[in-house]
């Protein structure tokens, strides 16, 4: 169930240039059903910034009643969020949307997880859940440059991890597609989250494979009521428009027109 929770900041730290890791605790944690779901955050109490910010759940620790979010402090709102300190209260709406289907990959099978930039976070919880169930995860993570690479160790600990940067300052130089070309298509399922051009390239390159993509869109309500966050669907799909917030953000490959 979606709830509006006053969550407590357990920790906040800058883990890469302008990239923050924040741990939040509250009863919302108990409502999360799948990796790739997101939360909708009020960055402060002022009405100056009226809209909530959608941020993916990057890790879930049910025992500790905690979630981790990883975000880039770029605009006004995320910058304000980055000033929160341990013990502060944050107004969080969630969990929202439908995440990545873990059940689509069987134990013993291999899954490719492809993330770009600030699309990487939801793949972490996904990988945790897949590997826990016995799936072999291969991570292909693209970043701009070394200073914004994050969670390299964490992904490494879960499985084979390829880092690639646009400027070559970390891992190999290029785009995730360069790594994908090299690794071939010997896997059962792929899961991806990142900027639209990346999702586009991934979907093309893996045509015919089973895959799931997570999309971004500017949001109003976050719950499906305002029609702000729609994506066009491909021809032949039964609906013309789907909502990223409540129908997504994860859709099977081929559904969204990109």
């Amino acid at each position, binding site marked *: 169930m979606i709830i509006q929770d006053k969550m407590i900041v357990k920790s906040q730290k800058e883990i890469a240039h302008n990239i923050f890791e924040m741990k939040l605790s509250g009863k919302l944690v108990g409502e999360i059903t799948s990796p790739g779901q997101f939360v909708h955050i009020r960055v402060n109490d002022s009405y100056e910034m009226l809209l909530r910010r959608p941020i993916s759940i990057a890790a879930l620790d049910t025992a500790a009643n905690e979630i981790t979010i990883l975000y880039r402090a770029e605009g006004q709102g995320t910058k304000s969020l980055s000033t929160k300190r341990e013990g502060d209260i944050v107004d969080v709406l969630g969990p929202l949307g439908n995440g990545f289907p873990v059940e689509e990959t069987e134990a013993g099978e291999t899954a490719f997880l492809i993330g770009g930039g600030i699309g990487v976070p939801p793949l972490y919880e996904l990988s945790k859940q897949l590997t826990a169930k016995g799936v072999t995860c291969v991570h292909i993570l693209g970043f701009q440059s070394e200073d914004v690479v994050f969670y390299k160790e964490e992904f490494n600990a879960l499985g084979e991890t390829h880092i690639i940067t646009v400027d070559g300052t970390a891992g190999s130089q290029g785009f995730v597609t360069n790594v994908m070309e090299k690794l071939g298509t010997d896997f059962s399922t792929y899961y991806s989250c990142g900027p639209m051009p990346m999702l586009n390239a991934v979907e093309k390159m893996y045509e015919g494979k089973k895959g799931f993509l997570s999309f971004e869109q500017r949001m109003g309500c976050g719950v499906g009521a305002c029609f702000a966050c729609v994506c066009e669907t491909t021809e032949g799909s039964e609906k*013309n428009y789907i909502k990223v917030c409540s129908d997504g953000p994860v859709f099977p490959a081929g559904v969204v027109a990109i």
Partner: protein
Amino acid sequence: MNRLSVDLPGLQLKNPIMPASGCFGFGKEYGKLYDLSVLGAIMIKATTLETRLGNPTPRVAETSSGMLNAIGLQNPGLEGVMEGELPWLEQFDVPIIANVAGTETADYVEVAKEISTAPNVHALELNISCPNVKEGGITFGTDPKIAKELTAAVKAVSKVPVYVKLSPNVTDIKEIAIAVEEGGADGITMINTLLGMRLDEKTGKPIIANKTGGLSGPAIKPVAIKMVHEVSQVVNIPIIGMGGVTNSQDVIDFLSAGASAVAVGTANFVNPFICPTIIEELPLKLDELGINHISELVGRSHRF
């Protein structure tokens, strides 16, 4: 005695609070969060004759204490609403106000005629003020003569009272209000959004794909209060006020300005529980003000 009850043409409201059109879909999403029967009424998303896909994205952008939207009246069309949305809402003890939109008079008339027959639709809200569609919409709301004719045409076919939703993007809103009253409107709802634009910091291009959008939220409240204040003094039909309501004090302000009931739009996105929260707080506000019944507040900004 219910201290919050309000009687308006077609609408016996338990309380004066209702979600504004377009900010609450057709109720399903918020219906998962709380019991919709606590609401005074629900203004559903604009309904047009045919299915509308709306505008390309991005459709929203944030501004200081406000937001822009250019949804473009996306909705499943008259048939979709009659069959797919309204019946579901019947389970709740809450009157529905159906927001009606179109590109020409004939559309409005056809939608109004049909949708006013739905058992839970107790009133229509004639949307002559949508800034986000190329044809129709706002053009009906800026010319008093056209506004009056459209109102009369819809009144002639509607089985329920007709409220007309006014645009603030006019030189003199009183003129339009008087015209729709003459056209037979049973009430007025106001204000729809102001026209605005936000540019991307890097490219300098409009963020919203439609370029312009409608400005809503606390930023526009002073404009809305001013307009409700002036319109309520020149018409004899009731006003449902809106524009930037985020808390119970804002509701008191709109009633004081001259509205008989109040709609909450953008604030639902900030706090999905805002309507029930305000409804709970209102009696405490009345106590504070030493007032028995909420109707005593109506128009106190210009009375005596």
